[in-house]
């Protein structure tokens, strides 16, 4: 049966089916092509993880909160300023040095998002993650374009052929097909360029799983830069995950991050519960109980 001989309404159903198939094929082939073994990352750098999860805005938020936590930045309402004791030599990461330079004079916290010098300090993170296959490299972007163009070529080609046949047969009501074709191509384009590769998505999910215990203890994390834990929590889950009283300033400085955290709270709790079997007190008949592992647990 030649699909081009189908009458109008039937052909539209066929074309919708073909579009769905093309879009699914785009997604599946992209996932397969962009999946690779988990790379080794520097997990001592929360900014690298923040960049993976939320690009420049998230990295800058986490860096700002890190400096606030260490007393190197001071928040007054929605404004930030470098503290008197702050010196660019006191910090080692370029993003932190640039933040201290920027806030030598008080300014709105939101100003970090439009500062080109600050954004430039995030470039090394982007490059590292591209090399690791977690963000799309030029080669990956090229492959995405190729797949998209093939899909669009197929959809567009089928639509054009049908339109020509219809016109030849004196049928001029081709607008549904034109609109469908445009919609299909737009949808295909939208799903073809996610920010992360499949490996990048997986890495975020895995890190959120590995650090789930941190989220469960968010209220009790020590502030003041004593440990890396609050900043890793912010990097992996967003600054909105810093729910302890010491971090109340984050909701004033970055209200959208807090809203995003609240919106994702159902996911957060399920991520938290995923630690129930990773806590070493679940499932292990001899390792379970008060201590987990395989030790005793006291009398």
């Amino acid at each position: 049966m030649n699909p081009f001989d189908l009458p109008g309404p039937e052909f539209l159903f066929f074309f919708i089916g073909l579009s769905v198939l093309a879009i699914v094929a785009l997604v599946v082939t992209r996932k397969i092509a962009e999946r690779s073994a988990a790379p080794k990352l520097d997990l001592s750098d929360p900014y690298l993880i923040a960049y993976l999860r939320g690009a420049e805005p998230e990295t800058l938020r986490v860096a700002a909160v890190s400096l606030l936590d260490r007393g190197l930045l001071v928040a007054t309402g929605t404004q930030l300023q470098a503290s008197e004791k702050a010196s660019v030599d006191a910090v080692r990461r370029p993003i932190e040095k640039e933040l201290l330079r920027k806030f030598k004079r008080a300014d709105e916290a939101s100003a970090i998002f439009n500062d080109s010098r600050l954004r430039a300090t995030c470039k090394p993170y982007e490059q590292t993650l591209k090399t690791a296959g977690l963000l799309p490299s030029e080669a990956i972007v090229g492959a995405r374009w190729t797949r998209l163009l093939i899909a669009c070529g197929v959809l567009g080609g089928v639509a054009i052929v049908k339109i020509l046949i219809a016109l030849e047969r004196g049928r001029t009501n081709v607008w549904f097909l034109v609109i469908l074709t445009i919609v299909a191509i737009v949808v295909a384009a939208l799903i073809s360029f996610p920010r992360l590769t499949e490996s990048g998505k997986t890495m975020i999910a895995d890190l959120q799983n590995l650090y789930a215990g941190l989220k469960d203890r968010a209220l009790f994390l020590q502030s003041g830069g004593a440990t890396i834990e609050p900043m890793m929590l912010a990097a992996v889950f967003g600054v909105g995950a810093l729910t302890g009283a010491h971090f109340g300033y984050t909701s004033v400085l970055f209200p959208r991050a807090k809203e995003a955290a609240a919106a994702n709270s159902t996911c957060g709790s399920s991520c938290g519960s995923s630690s129930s079997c990773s806590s070493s007190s679940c499932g292990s008949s001899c390792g379970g109980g008060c201590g987990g592992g395989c030790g005793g647990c006291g009398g």
Partner: protein
Amino acid sequence: MAVGAEAVAVVVEGEMNVDRFGLGWRPRLAAGILANLDRIDIVEVIADDYFRAPRHERRALQTLAAQTPVTLHGVSLGLASAVPVQTRRLDDMARLCAAVAPESWSEHLAFVRGGGIEIGHLAAPPRTEATIEGALANLARAKEIVGVAPHVENVATLIDPPGSDRDEAAWLSAIIRNSESKLLLDLHNLHANAINFNFNPCVFLAKIPVERIATIHLAGGKWIGRNGAQRLLDDHLHDVPDPVYELLEEVAARAPQTLTVIIERDGKFPAIESLLAQLDRARQAVSRGRARALKQQVAA
């Protein structure tokens, strides 16, 4: 190689190998461990926590294994029993090993169930020919099903196992010498048993095949008492005590092969820096032991 740590090189058949030092993986310690992988050579994951875990949790373990070497540690097989280990439990371990590809796996020479009753902890079995044979049969099956023999760990016991006709060193040695398994020597378990049952841990070390030790566990414990009786409990909730470091130095002086030393901490977690400091102390103990062995070799 850990920054600032003393690398202890052991020349084995012309290759340079290095002793390694790691921590038990606990979610509570995740951030600290992952931020300090330059000072941690390996992590040990409790396997049983992942036997029934959903796919995404196992995948996260694979990601962990990409960051640092991982070894899996089982706690519920009950290998040292006259009763065969249930195949489904070995299948669980096999599946997890296939998914995570750890560099090794280990279990305890304990029994953990009997007559349908789960003891809920590792119990020292009667030290008899039957439990030796049972353990050897279980180890052979474990190797067949999982694909590689496990390292096997000595257990701490609060009770002198009734029905025993030999001491722990003899029993352990018989199993190690007649199997393909290497020994995971838990030095706090040795220390606790030595105190509780009045034997010399150095004499124990002299009796066992130290050349078969692959891994060492370090942990801490506390004294417990009831009705006037006191025993040292291996609870994994305290810092590694001095005598255990001394035993570690002793092992390092006697064992020619490289060692993997892992600190187990299951609760009352100190700051990660404290655990890393204990790991550094373990490095120093091994270093001293190796230096002593070298001196003795030169003198001989």
